């Protein structure tokens, strides 16, 4: 090996090692290292379906006012202009109203999918979107198991919009607008561990009124939005097939393999090249 090829080999190896190190330094964001994330408990047995939360959400976030009357026959989904919706389900326990919005996962798929860290899990709990970082690739929409992030397809300067758990209000010490405006007190806001205790307290104190499951306690690794219900959750439009693995773990093995490939493959290829060299390199041959 002459001097030049030795230097070349060294450079390739160093470059690979550097790139590899950078990509390796990427343990998924530890949830709420700074303290307990906040959570919201929704008791669907209490919700009366008045949709005050929809109006409060629109007012607090500067969104267009939701329709005055809605046809509960059809199931609505959240949209870029309406971040929470209330749907009605006919069940064995009668009419049940369920509001849907971003679940604010403890380890969000959207945030780990985001290559610019525009989707960001705050230590306080809310998952927020940051306009100055997002490039609009919509990978968060592909990854989110709850189909929450919505994209402004009709804008030349589109944003990703979804519930922010009233992040700005939390910073000022207030509770989210929907919590503050719920006349039935169907939603409770507080530290997540307390909300889980509250949920199980209600189940134990009234075991016949609830299914013994807190949706969001473990789903997709746990969410900051928790639900209680009187009927199985699949009857209320919830996906119950999501499992308890945090979604970022689905790509973790692949990402862990990256530094190994980056550092192992180049030396292997160079060795292979050296081993299969059966003649002097011929400059004119290219």
């Amino acid at each position: 090996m002459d001097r030049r090829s030795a230097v070349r080999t060294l450079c390739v190896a160093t470059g690979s090692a550097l790139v590899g190190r950078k990509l390796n330094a990427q343990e998924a964001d530890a949830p709420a290292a700074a303290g307990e994330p906040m959570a919201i408990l929704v008791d669907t047995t209490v919700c009366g379906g008045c949709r005050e939360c929809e109006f409060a959400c629109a007012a607090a976030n500067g969104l267009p006012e939701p329709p005055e009357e809605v046809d509960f026959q059809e199931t609505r989904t959240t949209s870029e202009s309406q971040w929470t919706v209330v749907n009605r389900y006919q069940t064995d326990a009668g009419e049940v109203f369920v509001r849907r919005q971003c679940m604010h996962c403890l380890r969000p798929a959207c945030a780990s999918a985001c290559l610019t860290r525009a989707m960001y899990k705050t230590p306080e709990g809310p998952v927020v979107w940051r306009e100055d970082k997002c490039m609009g690739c919509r990978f968060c929409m592909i990854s989110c198991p709850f189909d929450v992030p919505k994209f402004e397809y009709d804008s030349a300067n589109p944003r990703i919009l979804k519930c922010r758990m009233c992040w700005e209000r939390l910073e000022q010490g207030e509770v989210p607008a929907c919590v503050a405006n719920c006349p039935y007190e169907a939603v409770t806001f507080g530290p997540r561990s307390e909300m889980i205790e509250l949920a199980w307290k209600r189940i134990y104190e009234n075991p016949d009124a609830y299914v013994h499951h807190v949706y969001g306690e473990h789903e997709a690794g746990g969410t900051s939005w928790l639900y209680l219900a009187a009927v199985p959750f699949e009857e209320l439009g919830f996906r119950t097939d999501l499992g308890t693995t945090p979604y970022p773990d689905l790509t973790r093995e692949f990402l862990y393999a990256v530094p190994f490939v980056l550092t192992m493959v180049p030396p292997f290829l160079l060795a292979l090249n050296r081993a299969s060299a059966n003649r002097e390199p011929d400059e004119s041959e290219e």
Partner: protein
Amino acid sequence: MERDPVAAESRRTAPSPSIVLRELGRFVRFMLGEMRPRGRLLTPFNVLTGAIVLVTIGLLVIRFTHGLGSITNLSQDSPWGLWIGFDVITGVAFAGGAYVLSFIVYVLGQERYRPIARVTILNGFLAYVFYAGALLLDLGRPWKVVNPIIGNSFGVSSVMFLVAWHFLLYMIAEFVEFSPTIAEWAGWPRLRRRLHALTLGAVVFGITLSILHQSGLGALFLMARDKIHPLWYSQFIPILFFVSSIFAGLSMVIFEGTITHKVFHERVGDRLEQTYPDILTGLARICAATMFVYLFLQLLVFVHGQRWTYMRTGWGAWYLLEMAGLVALPIALFLHGHVRRNLAVIRAAAILTLAGIVLNRLNVSVIAYKWYAPVPYVPSWQEVVVTLGVISAEIWVFRWIVNRMPVLDRALPSPAPRARGRAVPAPATR
């Protein structure tokens, strides 16, 4: 990184500034001469692709002033459509031929394939520039595209971050691999020698990057576990994407070569002309072998995922079409073509293989994604036209380069640098 030793050397033997300036002036005049179109302009192909490109430009103006929704059928349920599923994800698989062939030629030293190395690397480079570049059209906020590269916004836990970086680095690596050809064309033998010295480093780096981002494109869908039909989702998508990119790329080399050899007949050098049948039969054998590995992996995934429960549905038939009709059948055809040295059969196999790759990538990214959605995504005509426009523009650039640079043949025998611009015989442009 790899540049350092060369930079050090060039400082030692750097030509004086005045020579560089004079050389630059010569190159500008040479370049102006080369920019002129050759041959007839008003051919049916030019008129058709010209119209498509013009319409594409118009559509893109609308897209960038009124948003993606103005010309695409993308929706909240289908965030990625034809532009990502076909242009980027399928296009990059098709461009895999460059890393596979550079592995065969530059790492393994299989001289037999060297005559097609340049054209394959050129194709790979242009495919990345245009098809990965088409990503910019699909980004909602493309002016933020530099964020993960130079900003402080490193989303290192994102597969997309890896893919973005690798696209960029791989384009640079492929440009370095192709650069000796440019230096030959421009008449810079000394620079050509230096660039040539970088080739192995660029090849090794490029192969490593390709392994990672070909599989990374599959890894993008790992978190869509509960949205992709179970016949197409598995945790092995990255490996399947990587293995299939090998024969997807080589099939594209076969397919593209078929067209290139007809269209650029005058540009094909003697050496390539004589050995081309050998090259094709060799590629056919490699394709068959890697496709067999791929089929076996798919079979493992099929059994492991207990997928037979889905086979009685319409999706099962669709899956069977992809696996039996567009993977197993081409294997047989490739083998037949290889044994009987039947180039027509090999070409047919390559086309079937390419169709299978299109189907596979679109199934994972678009068709079987949200397969339960009430309104399935169908691309709008505008999305199709823009895709054709991107392909047309790529073909124009490819043609311009092939007609001028020593891509399909070796460098012309020692033309005097100053006279080179005129020394190249003007081929008929179609």
